[in-house]
């Protein structure tokens, strides 16, 4: 029995010490892969589980958010002044040129963040209230600045009990004006070049062929077989054997010239060239 209790006590203590060792003592960025983890004016932090491990009924955890250059200013002010530190630097004027460059905002009750729970997916958005006007509202950070955070343990009387370490520097990206986007022509695609060149060449070729066709058809000298008759020698030879004669009888042929029988009264007697056809 005794060894059992001793073992359980030892294990409890080791667990407590382990959680004590794993205790983060400063604000940290959330470990979730949120797309808006760090924007130009907001930051998403882990919730302050197990940051302050002391019993403190009615205490609250507050966050100091400001430019990293104001870390020293805040520490000095906290050490020196005993007045209500919560209203040291109201949010609306916090980041004016001659101001303290930090503001305080409430995260939650200490009892909401016990040490035996350690949910890593809980988050706290710094800047969730936007541009607000309360003294301790959770307003946006200056655009593109380098910011640091610190947790404070404040009791019910608004006095500071404990404070964590400062977080590491978190650089917010500067918001780019949309005029910086160059929206001119990026590059000509290959398809456009191909279409343009081939179509221009085709149109020019077509015009050229059209003109060639016009020239060829209108101005070419005719070489075709024409039906024109060149009248060189218009010899008109009457035919005397058209009437009352049979095909075979050619009375005007001199039989003595048998060999020339066919040569005198038919169209074969007429000159071959230059005769006008009747």
């Amino acid at each position, binding site marked *: 029995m005794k060894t059992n209790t001793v073992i359980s006590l030892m294990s409890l203590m080791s667990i407590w010490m382990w959680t004590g060792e794993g205790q983060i003592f400063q604000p940290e960025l959330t470990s*979730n*892969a*949120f*797309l*808006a*983890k760090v*924007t*130009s004016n*907001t930051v*998403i932090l882990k919730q302050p589980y197990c940051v302050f491990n002391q019993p403190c009924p009615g205490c609250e955890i507050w966050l100091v958010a400001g430019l990293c250059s104001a870390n020293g200013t805040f520490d000095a002010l906290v050490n020196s002044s005993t007045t209500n530190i919560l209203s040291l630097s109201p949010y609306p004027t916090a980041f004016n040129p001659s101001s303290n460059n930090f503001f305080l905002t409430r995260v939650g009750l200490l009892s909401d963040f016990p040490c035996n729970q350690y949910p890593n997916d809980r*988050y706290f*958005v710094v800047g969730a*209230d*936007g*541009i*607000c006007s309360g003294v301790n509202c959770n307003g*946006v950070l200056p655009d593109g600045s380098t910011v640091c955070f610190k947790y404070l343990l404040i009791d019910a009387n608004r006095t500071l009990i404990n404070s964590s370490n400062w977080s590491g520097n978190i650089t917010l*990206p500067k*918001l*780019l*004006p*949309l005029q910086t*986007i*160059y*929206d001119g*022509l*990026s*590059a*000509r*695609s290959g*398809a*456009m070049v191909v*279409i*343009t060149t*081939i*179509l*221009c060449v*085709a*149109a020019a*070729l*077509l*015009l050229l*062929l*059209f003109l060639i*066709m016009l020239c*060829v*058809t209108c101005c070419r000298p005719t070489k075709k077989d024409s039906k024109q008759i060149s009248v060189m020698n218009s010899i008109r030879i009457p035919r005397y054997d058209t009437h009352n004669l049979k095909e075979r009888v050619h009375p005007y042929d001199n039989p003595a010239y048998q060999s020339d029988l066919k040569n005198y009264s038919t169209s074969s007697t007429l000159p071959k060239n230059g005769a006008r056809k009747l």
Partner: protein
Amino acid sequence: MGAGALTCLMFVVIALNAIAAAAGLALFAVAIWVAVDGYKLYPISGVSGKDDIFAAAWIAIFTGFAFFLTCIYGIFAALKRSRGFMMVYLIIMFIIFLFECASAITAATNRDYLVGNSNLVKKQMLQYFADSSTQGKQITQTWNRVMEQVECCGADGPSDWIQYNSTFKQMFGSTYIWPLSCCKRLSTFEVEDKEGCMVGKASTIFPKGCFQHIESVLSRYTWAVSWYGFSVLMLVFFTLVIAMIYYMQLE
């Protein structure tokens, strides 16, 4: 050329004209499809003043129908074996050819300006989304519809809204990092997890950008007018060359 060869050439001319008439009618139909803009992305090109893709589609409507009518006339002219008719046909076809060339080249060139990279679309979105002018309302409506239907956010991704200043950020930046259209919704159209969406939890927001969809739609329109117009023009070029040979062989 012998009579038989001439008749053969006449049939070739008629066949090519018939095919070109059908192709011209199809061009007419495709160009109507582009002009109707079923994807409703016209404001993206209209607001920036670079809407020549749609202008080219309108030209293609007219030239496509003109090709159809003129090729039918060409069939008639070839059957008539008349030089006069063929000459009229050739001149009209050449004029329509030039207009269709203009349409194809315009569409292809203008597409490069609009969707060569995502800059123009992104800048326009940042400038006009949530703006209260007429163009702003058109752009807002278009982007909301695209983001909800295609399930995307921003031009290249939700980080566009974080990196750049925008009209939306000026107006709603204190409450919303990006528009609610970027968030996943239930079937009742309610946002599934508004808080998670506003911090950018991966399961509640659409992580991809809308530029790919916009680019693919506008490219689809462009290639419909431009490449199909190009192929019709190549067919018409070939037809006109044969028609010119036929013309020369006529008496």
